[in-house]
């Protein structure tokens, strides 16, 4: 797959934005974007994600959006088979956009790129899981046409 170069300047798009696989040199910026969103720096976690997802393995993706010389956002996901009894589908389990780069179509470009990859891998559904109180990210995925999936996440306190 490919890097997706965004040339048009239609609404929601941005000239000069390039979506490509993440590289080791991107990691510090990805960690910083994630830390701004979650309040927690997780260098070891992200190093592990880069090791496992950065090489664009058969069904794993770790993409970044590059604008100028800076990383404006990232997305991580993979195709999983029969998880929770579901036919193979694409899962997005991490997305982030630099706060000063929001509302410029970067999240949409990242989701579009990973969705195109999932489609090429033969799946017809993309899913994600969002905390109920994370209205920003929940609204973003809704704005991209995502609806409630026919699954209910459950949990139990086992502490």
């Amino acid at each position, binding site marked *: 797959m490919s890097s997706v170069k965004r040339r048009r300047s239609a609404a929601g798009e941005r000239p000069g934005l390039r979506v490509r696989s993440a590289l080791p040199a991107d990691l510090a910026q990805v960690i910083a974007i994630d830390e701004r969103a979650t309040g927690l720096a997780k260098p070891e976690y992200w190093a592990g994600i880069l090791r496992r997802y950065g090489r664009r393995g058969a069904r794993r993706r770790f993409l970044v959006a590059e604008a100028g010389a800076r990383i404006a956002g990232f997305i991580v996901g993979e195709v999983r088979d029969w998880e929770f009894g579901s036919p193979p589908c694409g899962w997005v389990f991490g997305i982030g956009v630099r706060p000063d780069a929001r509302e410029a179509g970067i999240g949409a470009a990242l989701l579009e790129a990973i969705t195109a990859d999932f489609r090429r891998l033969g799946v017809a559904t993309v899913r994600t899981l969002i905390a109920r*109180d994370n209205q920003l990210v*929940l609204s973003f995925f809704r*704005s991209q046409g995502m609806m409630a999936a026919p699954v209910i996440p459950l949990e139990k306190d086992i502490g």
Partner: protein
Amino acid sequence: MRLQKNTLLALYSVLEFAAQPARQLSVAGIAESLRVSPHHLAKVLRSLGRAGLVDSVRGARGGYRFAGNARRVTLMDVIGLFEDIGAPRPRTRRGRRPAERALEQVLREIDDTARATFGSVTLDTMLKLIGRSDGRG
């Protein structure tokens, strides 16, 4: 899930306004399309106006115009003006029957989901959804 009549009128109206933000729409025109009395709809629109979602324009050719940000205003912002759907339930009091407490817990779960759903769908997203339902999006 059922919403009250005024809540639905408010949602339909505000979507109508948000779809044509530059246009000024008359109460009579919207009332006719929603098949309600202009008097009834005017009360609903006044609530939307007090919340800053629409601006009223006075005069013979007066009416209302959208005043919000369709990418920011959510369904919950509108619904919350008219009913307490998904409002946090009071914490379980001591001494209540176990069945009441257990049911309360399940109902809270449903409320939380409803609130998160309505709070995550913006008017802009709804307009896209309407476009798709209509075969245009």
